[in-house]
């Protein structure tokens, strides 16, 4: 009974797909044995890595103009459901595939692409270099700590003069993988956190919602005493002040791309290439890091599409990684890059 959503997106995607295939068929004849794949690859999914994917597809158009890759940032949930219904050639997702998300077990393979830190940004006049311990962070975000001069915050910041301003929690009003990873971190790393984890959360009553990362960044900027979680790109662009967060080794770390890659290095990689970089070990590792994956099919019906997906992803995992930093995303550590390439080669022969 998924009539509505499927009908709408189905029509759109199907027509683009048909167009793509037609373009394939009408193309020059050297496609079969040539070096470069051609045609059109259609992808949809997570909006979190969209800035990076957009830059990558644009750059890739110059590397191989015959293979057109389109990525629609419709959200992880929609991307997975499109994938399950065969509407896209690969899907982007920030979260793992659940049982009722759409894709059938065994029909997909995760390929990690990049990761990005989620900053804890705040707006408190005259206060810079704020450090927040993990338990304190959980208590702030669930409304147990309501004023900035709370002794628990003061304990982490012996050198700071904290005002008595009320704390306002800024959060995403839309469902989001960023919320998912942030709450998952609090859920896994701390004892105090009681709100569970997921793409939406039951925020305390002293909270305001913003639409998208930009919306949260805006809410933090305009509200005195606000604290919110924002991805690095938007925090940097808006000029937000970010807090140093306590990591697994007990160090307070600023959200940087180096700290993120350090976190990825410390993460345990599962057999299916999923990994959990949250609160990873390592003295430099930033603890709140969001991974993002691409779902590829284990069995492509169309050889052309399979070749195109493989070629694009191979590029994305090698040369394409250089684009990550300038878009405020962290490249994968070399070990994981190689692992991803190996799995890609195994999955698409």
């Amino acid at each position, binding site marked *: *009974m*998924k*009539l*509505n*959503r499927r009908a709408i997106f189905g029509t759109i995607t199907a027509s683009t797909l048909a167009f793509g295939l037609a373009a394939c068929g009408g193309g020059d004849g050297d496609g079969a044995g040539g070096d470069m794949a051609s045609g059109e690859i259609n992808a949809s999914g997570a*909006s979190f890595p969209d800035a990076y994917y957009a830059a990558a597809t644009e750059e890739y158009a110059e590397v191989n103009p015959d293979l057109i890759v389109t990525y629609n940032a*419709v*959200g*992880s*949930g*929609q991307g*997975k*459901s499109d994938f399950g219904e065969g509407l896209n050639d690969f899907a982007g997702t920030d979260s793992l595939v*659940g049982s*009722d*998300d*759409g894709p059938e077990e065994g029909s997909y393979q995760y390929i990690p692409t990049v990761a990005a830190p989620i900053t804890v940004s705040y707006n408190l006049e005259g206060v810079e270099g704020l450090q927040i311990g993990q338990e304190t962070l959980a208590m702030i975000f669930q409304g147990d700590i309501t004023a900035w001069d709370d002794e628990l915050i003061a304990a982490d910041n012996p050198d700071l003069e904290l005002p008595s301003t*009320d704390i*306002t929690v800024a*959060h*995403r*009003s*839309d*469902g*989001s*993988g960023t919320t998912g990873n942030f709450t998952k971190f609090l859920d896994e790393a701390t004892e105090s956190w009681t709100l*569970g*984890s*997921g*793409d*939406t*959360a*039951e*925020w305390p*009553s002293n*909270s*305001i*919602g*913003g*639409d998208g990362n930009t*919306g949260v960044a*805006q*809410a933090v900027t*305009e*509200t*005195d*005493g*606000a604290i919110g979680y924002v991805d690095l790109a938007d925090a940097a662009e808006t000029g937000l002040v970010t807090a140093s967060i306590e990591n697994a080794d007990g160090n307070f770390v600023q959200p940087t791309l180096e700290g993120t890659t350090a976190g990825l290095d410390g993460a345990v990689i599962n057999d299916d290439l999923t990994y959990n970089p949250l609160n990873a070990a390592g003295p430099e590792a930033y603890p709140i890091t969001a991974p993002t994956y691409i779902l590829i099919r284990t069995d492509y019906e169309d050889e052309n599409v399979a070749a195109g997906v493989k070629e694009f992803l191979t590029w994305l995992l090698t040369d394409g990684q250089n684009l990550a930093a300038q878009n405020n995303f962290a490249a994968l550590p070399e070990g994981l890059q190689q692992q991803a390439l190996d799995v890609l080669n195994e999955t698409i022969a």
Partner: protein
Amino acid sequence: MTSTASPQTPDDLDLGGDSRARGTDRGFRGLVTFAGLTVLIVLGLILVTTTMRAMPAISHEGLLGFVFGTRWAPNDDVFGAFSMLYGTLVTSLIGMLIAVPVSIGIALFITEVAHARSRKYIVTIIDLLATVPSVVFGLVGVLVVVPFITPVYQWFAGLVEPIPLLSSLFADTNTGRNYFTAGLVLTIMVIPIITSIAREVFDTVPEADKQAAYALGATRWEMIKGAILPHSFGGLVGASMLGLGRAMGETIAVALVIGGSFHISASMFDTGNTMAAAIAQQWGESTGLHTDALIGIGVVLFAITVIINFAARWVVRRAEIKMRGAHT
């Protein structure tokens, strides 16, 4: 063809053959009947498919639990829509409380006070307001109004603090993203709708009624009160209902300024959410039961709009009976 009261009935027109003319006429009738029915059919299909799609979530909570449950927690599979229902009603109420008097004022100004020449320009400007896309109002709201108005809210909250009821209705706040801002944005959006219909309604008041009032020595205000307003009551309720429908269904502008939290607060200066806004916000990343519940909210919104419209009709009918009774 015998002579009839109106010689312009289609039967009397010579269109080059009676049978052909009648055929065209029948075809035309079929076409417009079909066009009219399409609306009903589409509406019916929408209602059926959305309700069916929403059933898993509604039966999961029970109808009462779904509509009146106060906890909305997709992570725990708990879906109670009441905080959004409350937000929708409160923001629409704020919007209507401000927009209706202002719109009636504008319409009276245009029809009764303004000069014929300036009248044209005012009408154009008001209609122009209706063509601005709602997302623009939302962005102006969140980027301009919200930062500007927060201190105003804080000042007002401080002002009414000693007064018992008002102090809980307008409690201290540190954000401009709240029910009241959403209500203000809705006000701007519904004013053109209500104004333009109110204007048309006032135009239908017979000149004789107005002149009669003047002849009895009425001032302009007494004429408006005695001749225009009673005559226009039904039309004004209709205009307000159209505005209310727009306000209740407005999505993106509200989503941007209301603060997106699922709480029920007596304070108009607190963050909240509305049904339409919540659907738009959570749709993209929802799966399974969560998606069904969002569609269910759409069904509830639809039902409430229908109920309010019927209630309004009832009010109009009663008022008109009463008024006619008073006149005769």
